[in-house]
């Protein structure tokens, strides 16, 4: 046993000698050039993306000897590129509390690994740190989508749809003179347009900030072109207003016929939808649909003029609103007859009373009637029982202020199913209105036997559309009237199908006109005003 112990001890001793020798060699090997020293490493680093560039942020550990950092990356394949970032004030971002460098890449885009290694004053290098950076380029930008832009129907503003990441839009639009406005960057959701050309183009480009840390915003490559809505009705209607209902010249005829084309192409169902739509939607339709432009604008014009017109003593202003709806203003009173319109109830504050010939929707506007009644203003009719004082199914006389009113009761367009359905109103406006008198026939059958209570000479007769039987009440016999002026109306009432399926078309009314037994027969259009003065209508 002791012999074995001796051998083992001897073996261990030999191994010890060998090991010590190897340890010496190893140590000498490491120590031959001096001790291995690393520079202070980069404690933290990150990258902020940009368009063909990246901002690298460096947060080195504390090292009194630090000099600079070397950033390296692969360009293509194994080809490397690098950049030195000196640890000096120039490259120090005090707010961030670290050093930074913006590295530009002419051709690189997409993900990129960037390595960073610190170097100290003695040339010692730190351990390598790396980050993944993303470079935006044309490939990325080409996938971006512009935010849709909506041009208001009044062509007075553009509204941008909001998109996640979008910080605004660049916009330029076509003006009436054909030129484009300079491109501007807009952060707001809405942008006002001035003199934008209907039918022209709005060009927009959305600007994105994909991440809040990005150093560049990105603009969508191509402009989005949005057409500015057109409305042919605007030019036509405005041109018509420059003509006179008292002069049926070629220009006026052409414009009236164009308006008829607009009306014929607008289905009555669409008119129904317009009437029921929310206010904003209805206004939109007025600016985008030609015939509705005329319809809406006529109301705006009438509203403004009824308020602003000062009627001289001895004269009267008469407006046609729509269909057989009229507003008449004397120096002392303003009243309406058969006023019907989408916005009719807005007229209530300016009317002293209204007459309604019969209970059909294109003559009787319930909201207006109720608004008038609520304010205690007379609503004369043969069906609106809420105003008991001015309700009568029989011929009756009324006096309201200076105004004297006589009525008679007729059938509706000679329909045996509707006898005694229509009240015709003869209105004498009094001395301050030059004793102006008018007769409104509504949709009566124009039988003289039913006009006996309103017969006699008068200044103005509001006929329907001048059909031959309407002449039956014109004359000096019993139940006839002798007007100085006759107005033809009920033009293109949009709830009816186009002529010959219901509507009184403009063309047909023009054909009737020469046959009307009144030397001064006129066809005013929606919104037009006529003034009675010194025994004449002008």
């Amino acid at each position: 046993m002791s012999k074995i112990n001796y051998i083992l001890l001897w073996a261990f001793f030999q191994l010890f000698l060998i090991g010590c020798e190897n340890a010496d060699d190893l140590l000498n090997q490491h120590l031959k050039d001096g001790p291995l020293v690393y520079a202070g490493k980069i404690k933290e680093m990150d990258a902020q993306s940009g368009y063909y560039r990246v901002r690298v942020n460096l947060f080195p550990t504390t090292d009194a000897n630090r000099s600079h950092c070397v950033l390296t990356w692969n360009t293509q394949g194994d080809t490397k590129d690098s950049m030195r970032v000196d640890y000096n004030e120039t490259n120090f971002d005090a707010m961030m509390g670290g050093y930074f460098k913006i590295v530009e890449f002419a051709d690189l885009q997409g993900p990129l690994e960037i390595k960073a290694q610190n170097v100290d004053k003695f040339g010692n290098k730190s351990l390598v740190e790396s980050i993944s950076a993303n470079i935006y380029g044309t490939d990325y930008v080409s996938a971006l989508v512009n935010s849709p832009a909506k041009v208001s129907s009044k062509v007075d503003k553009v509204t941008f749809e909001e998109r996640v990441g979008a910080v605004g839009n660049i916009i330029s639009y076509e003006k009436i003179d054909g030129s484009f406005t300079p491109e501007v960057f807009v952060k707001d959701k809405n942008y006002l347009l001035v003199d934008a050309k209907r039918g022209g183009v709005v060009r927009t480009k959305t600007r994105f900030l994909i991440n809040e840390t990005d150093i560049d915003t990105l603009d969508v490559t191509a402009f989005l072109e949005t057409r500015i809505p057109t409305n042919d009705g605007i030019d036509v209607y405005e041109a018509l207003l420059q003509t006179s209902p008292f002069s049926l010249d070629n220009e006026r005829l052409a414009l009236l016929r164009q308006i008829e084309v607009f009306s014929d192409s607008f289905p009555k169902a669409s008119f129904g939808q317009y009437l029921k739509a929310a206010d904003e939607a209805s206004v939109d339709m007025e600016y985008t649909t030609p015939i509705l432009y005329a319809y809406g604008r006529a109301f705006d014009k009438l509203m403004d003029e009824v308020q602003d017109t000062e009627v001289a003593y001895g004269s009267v202003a008469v407006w046609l609103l729509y269909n057989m709806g009229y507003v008449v203003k004397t120096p002392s009173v303003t009243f309406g007859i058969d006023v019907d319109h989408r916005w009719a109830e807005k007229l209530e504050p300016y009317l002293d009373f209204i007459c309604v010939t019969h209970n059909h929707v294109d003559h009787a506007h319930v909201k207006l009637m109720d608004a008038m009644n609520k304010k205690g203003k007379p609503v004369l009719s043969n069906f609106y029982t809420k105003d008991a004082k001015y309700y009568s199914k029989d011929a009756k006389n009324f006096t309201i202020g200076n105004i004297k009113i006589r009525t008679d009761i007729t059938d509706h367009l000679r329909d045996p199913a509707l006898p005694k359905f229509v009240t015709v109103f003869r209105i004498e406006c009094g001395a301050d209105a030059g004793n102006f008198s008018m007769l409104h026939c509504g949709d009566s059958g124009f039988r003289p036997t039913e006009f006996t209570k309103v017969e006699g000479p008068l200044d103005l007769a509001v006929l329907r559309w001048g059909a031959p039987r309407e002449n039956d009440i014109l004359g000096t016999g019993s139940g006839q009237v002798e007007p100085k002026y006759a107005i033809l109306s009920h033009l293109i009432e949009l709830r009816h199908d186009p002529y010959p399926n219901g509507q009184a078309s403009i063309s047909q009314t023009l054909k009737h006109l020469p046959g009307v037994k009144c030397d001064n027969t006129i066809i005013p259009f929606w919104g037009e005003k006529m003034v009675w003065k010194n025994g004449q209508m002008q």
Partner: protein
Amino acid sequence: MFKYALSILLLAFCQLSSAQKRSFEKNQKNYVNVGVETIKKLNKTSPLVLSEERVSLLKTIDTYSDPYSDLPFKEYLKKSEDEAEELEHKEPILYAYRTAFEKVLKEVKHTKVKKGTASVWMLYNMGFVIKTPSGCFGIDVDHRLAEQLAPYLDFLYITHNHGDHANLKLMAAMKHLNKPVITNFDIDNAPYFSTVATGYKIGNFTLQTDISDHLRSPELSNFVAVVRIDCGDDADNFSILHCGDSGFDPQRFKKVQGPVDVVVLRWGEARENEILGAGDGQVQTNYALLSHLIEMRHKPYPKGQASITQTLKHLPHVTCKNTILPFWGEMLTWENGELK
């Protein structure tokens, strides 16, 4: 007598069918276009059978797309209707693009979907239209003529705000018809806008989204809303998961995990397998559809596009029993637990 009556009826039917052919197809005979024959042959093959013939035809189509990708395609999209149609008659890849739309539109309009089944059309890129007995919807539908589909879709889902997935005209047309357009980027469009995982119910359809990055880009960490849509009883509870351009990170699929009938992957590259399985954030499915093929706004592979050739290389490695590569315009039917 009966034979004569039958002949007349058949003749009348043929006339009627021919009259109903849209004018694009009728006018094609005035043009010479090698793509016509290729597409005709492709339409006779099935996306469920990857025969040599089908592979060869698909690779041919791949070559058609290369010269038209990126700028020429973007120029084509800006052209007037007449100019664009002229190009569609003449250029093979644009012919394929146009006829795919015509086919999908026609079939979506006229296909009567039997109870317990669902029809799935691949339109272009990652755009799909799904029709069940009670409804019809689109996911990432993009095409030059996409807005024509609006009257036939009950809702539209868009995974993210990139031009090859979000078609502005279709979105506008759907909104004009007051139909839901569900996104994670259209801020004004509440209640169909959300940037977090959300559930929606539209008719018989139940939607569940989860938010993912875009192709694992850290800059686009919450850019894509993947969606799982369950189509309801009348479609035999058919379910589909559409991954958009997601990064396929299971951590971002937890709200849509679990068994699903069909998964729409991207082009089947390796990382897309990470969401296939029984683990957390993974889905179990017997059918995977590969897509995003030759999207022509991108430069040809390897500079952006998912080429058909490369997708075919990925296909065998997709860890799903039935991995299918449908092409533009092709229809698949879900019936009795199988895609046909």
